[in-house]
């Protein structure tokens, strides 16, 4: 595997990486909060409602109201729950979501201007840690994030929680194969697991986007991504109409909020991966190059809300049936054809 080191870039220092990590934490948390607002608004518009309107102009400060509510709410731990695991589980979801974002390019790299004391001249990279196995790391981290719902559901001594945990296991077993196999075909074409290589591979414009070469893999990855982020056609873990709130039944206050932030951070991560791997990613040279990827990420985020407004969700057995009997064979066939094409 060839290395992706670019010589003319400034030296990445530990300070720069730490600054980048803080930026990711702060901005993505804020965007996750803003995402809830956008979701409510979009769902409302699609149902011909107005959505939140009263807190701030057009309800923009609804996030602040929700945040105050979440932070000040009593943190209840049920009597018979396994307290340690119950308290740790939401942290797993939120932490893995942000760790996954650490090796994904978010926001352009920049150099802190010289006139700022102490930190002046520090180079802040676009990727906090530019791993050469970026995709593997991100997918692994997002898969590890499923331990959050699993442990939460099993530790809370609640039947709905147990059902939610069981469904987490079902979902995990179903989509994980499809995610890996569907993204394997583009990896074979590019010959690298690094996001930067993927970006460079498609640098020649719209015609070189991976989605034209791998449409099947794109669709499969989107479907598996919806399952990975518990979005609507596959929101089995916490579907209110069936299992109250599933794994989150006993959670309240900020612990529940951490599940929420983790879910939205995962949505952003999946959108970033889809945008970089299949839709050409960003253009590091052009001034507005980063605007294109933000538009792409926004499109995928909107797609998730759109699908939630339009489609009903499936049963757990239908999800397993879909993933194992339809999507996985398709992914395998896709890989086979890609392999033959690459060989010839």
């Amino acid at each position, binding site marked *: 595997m060839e290395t992706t080191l670019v010589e003319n870039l400034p030296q990445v220092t530990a300070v720069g990486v730490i600054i980048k990590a803080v930026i990711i934490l702060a901005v993505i948390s804020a965007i996750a909060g803003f995402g809830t607002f956008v979701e409510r608004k*979009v769902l409302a*518009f*699609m*149902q*011909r*409602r*107005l959505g939140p*309107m009263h807190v701030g102009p057009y309800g923009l400060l609804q996030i602040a109201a929700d945040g105050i509510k979440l932070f000040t709410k009593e943190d209840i731990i049920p009597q018979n729950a396994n307290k340690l695991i119950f308290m740790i589980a939401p942290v797993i979801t939120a932490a893995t979501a942000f760790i996954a974002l650490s090796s994904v390019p978010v926001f352009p790299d920049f150099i802190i201007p010289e006139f700022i004391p102490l930190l002046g001249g520090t180079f802040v990279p676009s990727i906090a840690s530019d791993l050469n196995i970026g995709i593997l790391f991100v997918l692994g981290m997002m898969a590890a994030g499923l331990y959050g719902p699993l442990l939460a559901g099993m530790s809370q001594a609640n039947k709905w929680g147990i059902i939610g945990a069981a469904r987490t296991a079902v979902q995990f077993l179903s989509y994980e194969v499809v995610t890996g196999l569907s993204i394997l075909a583009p990896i074979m074409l590019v010959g690298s697991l690094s996001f930067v290589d993927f970006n460079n591979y498609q640098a020649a414009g719209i015609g070189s986007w991976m989605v034209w070469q791998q449409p099947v893999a794109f669709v499969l990855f989107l479907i598996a991504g919806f399952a990975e982020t518990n979005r609507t056609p596959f929101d089995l873990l916490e579907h209110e109409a069936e299992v109250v709130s599933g794994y989150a039944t006993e959670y309240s206050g900020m612990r529940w909020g951490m599940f929420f932030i983790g879910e939205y951070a995962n949505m952003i991560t999946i959108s970033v991966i889809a945008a970089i791997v299949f839709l050409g990613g960003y253009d590091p040279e052009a001034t507005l190059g980063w605007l294109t990827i933000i538009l792409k990420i926004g499109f995928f985020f909107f797609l998730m809300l*759109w*699908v939630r*407004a*339009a*489609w009903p969700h499936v049963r757990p057995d239908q999800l397993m049936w879909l993933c194992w009997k*339809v999507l996985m064979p398709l992914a395998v066939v896709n890989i086979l054809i890609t392999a033959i094409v690459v060989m010839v």
Partner: protein
Amino acid sequence: MSLEQFKNRNVGTQNYKTLDLGQSPTSGMGKFTQVIKRSVKGELFVGLWVTIREMFNALFRGNMHTVKYPFEKLPISPRYRAIHDMLRLLESGSYRCIGCGLCEKICISNCISMDTRYDENQRKEVSEYTINFGRCIFCGYCAEVCPELAIVHGPRYENASEQRASFSLFEDMLTPIDKLNLQQEYDGFGAVSPNADENIKQTPLAY
């Protein structure tokens, strides 16, 4: 006509149609083709199209259905029996109520109580008039029986208050003298809603 035909309760034309749902396939190949058909049929995209169409209609064509209730209200029907209003004569501004006592007499929940006296012009006027809205059942008899159209049902349907007596005094229900020009004439119980035209839907003629 024989008795059997009268006893036949199955009215209608008996012309039922069963939907052609088809047989659910049993063979493996049949199931496979069903999956393929459903996958490429594109029904899911119809759902996506409908939601995005409704979103654009709501945002750009004024099809938003939300009424921001405390700030804007839908017009209510004149048949609606809300908190009573006491009207004034438009010309002189004096009370329409002549103190005849018919409303007090007809009130079936006994919630209207009034007292009358002669004023300086030897004209009868009400000195005390209260409606106990804790007991009022809003039957509308008082408004129907009033010979002068003095007591009518107004548009105030928000009955929540700190105490029930808040609505009950004569002066509370009376049209304020400075808003006499805004006084709405009572259309009567048979009147149609002001937005009746919008509410009319076409009736299928075949029905």
